[in-house]
């Protein structure tokens, strides 16, 4: 008899957690939140005895939560322009932003940051530090409009993957520094897309667990970007792969 109430409490508690995250949303998004709340309760009312469906729903909701963090700020973009929008997006995720000829702006320990940058409508964003942030493919919408971005740090971002790297080509005209160290989902397939960024001068691809052959990938990326300083696997790791490369070459004699 108590089981249905337990499920309802579980659903309500989860939803209360979701409600807290809505607190920071702009007003234009609030009606959507209300609709989702009704939908969730309606959904639970129809299927609350179904454990599997509830778990699948919670799994999907976890993904939607990440996408909500990476939503585009349409209203703010219209009012303040793409630079302030991109800066606000990064600061809300906990990253840091540097406008041209200005100091770095970053949130404090409690996530608060100064709102003075709202006056920088015409000032381009020069550098973005999104290290450790929850940015993903959708969130890059807010960054690709920063046409003068020179430095982008995506170190240790858990949701940056090969799809994200394939989206960076609009920054090819300005981007000079890209730091990808410690991203668990970046592989050599995504690094292959960086050949669009011909103005790149510094690239950090160290500590990428999804790259299958770090030393070989390091060499190939250096060949692909000849004007760029590539920081990658340490030389000891590269030396381990040295003997592996030679057998590959000798096992395939060149034939005309």
């Amino acid at each position, binding site marked *: 008899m108590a089981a249905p109430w337990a499920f309802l409490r579980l659903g309500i508690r989860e939803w209360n957690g979701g409600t807290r995250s809505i607190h920071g949303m702009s007003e234009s998004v609030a009606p959507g939140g209300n609709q989702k709340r009704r939908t969730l309760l309606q959904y639970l009312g129809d299927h609350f005895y179904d454990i599997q469906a509830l778990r699948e729903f919670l799994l999907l909701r976890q993904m939607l939560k990440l996408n909500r963090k990476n939503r585009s700020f349409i209203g703010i973009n219209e009012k303040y322009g793409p630079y302030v929008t991109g800066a606000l997006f990064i600061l809300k995720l906990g990253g840091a932003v540097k406008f041209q000829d200005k100091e770095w702006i970053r949130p404090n320990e409690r996530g608060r940051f100064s709102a003075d940058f709202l006056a920088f409508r015409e000032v381009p964003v020069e550098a973005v530090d999104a290290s450790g942030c929850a940015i993903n*493919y959708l969130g890059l919408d807010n960054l690709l409009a920063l046409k003068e971005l020179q430095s982008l740090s995506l170190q240790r971002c858990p949701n940056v993957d090969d799809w994200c790297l394939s989206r960076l080509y609009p920054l090819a005209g300005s981007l000079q520094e890209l730091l990808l160290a410690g991203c668990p989902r970046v592989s050599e397939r995504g690094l292959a*897309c960086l050949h669009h960024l011909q103005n790149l001068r510094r690239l950090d691809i160290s500590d990428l667990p999804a790259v299958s052959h770090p030393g070989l990938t390091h060499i190939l990326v250096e060949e692909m970007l000849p004007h760029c300083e590539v920081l990658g696997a340490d030389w000891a790791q590269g030396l381990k792969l040295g003997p592996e490369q030679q057998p590959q070459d000798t096992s395939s004699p060149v034939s005309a």
Partner: protein
Amino acid sequence: MFRRVLQLGLGPGLLTRGLSTRRGVSTLDWDAKVSEFKKKIECILPGKPWETQLYDTSHLPPEQSDVVIIGGGIFGLSVAFWLKKLEKKQDAIRVLVVDQDHTYSQASSAGLSVGGIWQQFSMPENVRLSLFSVEFLRNINEYLAVVDAPPVDLRFNPSGCLLLASEKDAAALENNVKIQRQEGAKVCLMSPEQLQNKFPWVNTEGVALASYGMENEGWFDAWSLLQGLRRKVRSMGVLFCQGEVTRFITSSSCVEGPNGEEMVLKRIHKLHVKMDKSLEYQPVECAIVINAAGAWSGHIAKLAGIGKGPPGTLQGTKLPVEPRKRYVYLWHCPQGPGLETPLVADTSGVYFRREGLGSNYLGGCSPTEEEEPDPANLEVDHDFFQNKVWPHLAQRVPAFQTLKVQSAWAGYYDYNTFDQNGVVGPHPLVVNMYFATGFSGHGLQHALGVGRAVAEVVLEGEFKTINMSPFLFTRFYLEDKLQEYNIL
């Protein structure tokens, strides 16, 4: 309320699928239940006649199914997935997938494909299908995630697709790129000088224009997508059986057409499934049949009576899909193009892409109509590479003058001899047979959108998201060819 509590106590295995032991319950559980049932029968009614009637039929398909999907390849699984996803109530539709070749040793779309995906088509519907597919692949774990199972890893290479056009084809390519951009594809045009700057290893002689997909194009592991789809649709309650459809039982009724001609409408009521490596067969009563048999769709359609009639009539119009053999070669070239290599389609029709990090490359070419190989077996013709593929390769990429073929394999296309485009939607006369076939080499990247379109037509009676009306069967009777210029 009290009954629900009891249901909760039964355990998660039965809850999500009701008490029907046919749906998704494993063979082991079924055998255990059969044993228990036999014991109860023996206790209540001792005697021999009862025992002989209770034999194990777990390897047979069910006797009734709402939808039977013929073919367990990428198209069949996609239709099954979307039927289950778009159904109004959970487990409302019983879906059975009849798969003749569950090891996919002869499949073309998944197992043997180079796994390419691009949006550079000349028909807007094809561009939309590819854009939806790439969105599906990007969010693959939102669609195909199964609780307690590892996530699907497609190993997607977003390196793009590069199409080269000669002077003769440059105008068509430019017009195509305009269509693609209208549909939202991120494609850019390049002059020979720009092409040389971006890819210095390309010999631009004979190239007048090139189009390159900056985003959402590349290649991926088709096998992972297939297995992920299969796992998901099985968890959604789709039934599978390994067998061959050998016969359809239909009913007919005569109707008069708009011009006074007499036509015969047919409806499939049953189909016979012959089990693999056995003479045993099982009739399956069904309401809807989805023909997703790939290269053998024409054979299935003929079994259903499609094409039996006077030539030149709708009744006598066959499904023009037949198996065609295609070769894929893997070669090694230490001086070949580097990490940035896209999927390249040359002016001569030769295509190739990088494979891994060790200077390996994968590619091939579609033969001309006269060179079409015999599809009776899957033997590889290595002379085809030496005489038809390699000269164009070496001309376009001079580093490929010194390459060594490592391996090769062959697979079947579901080749549409009419216009090399897919057949989607219902047959006008066999009113409950639907097609999802005939994509002639680009089916892998279109299967996800086509599956959704077929599911929409089955469940809601019309195309909702992507309008696939130009791909209906009636165009064969009306001689209305669809022009698609960019087919590898």
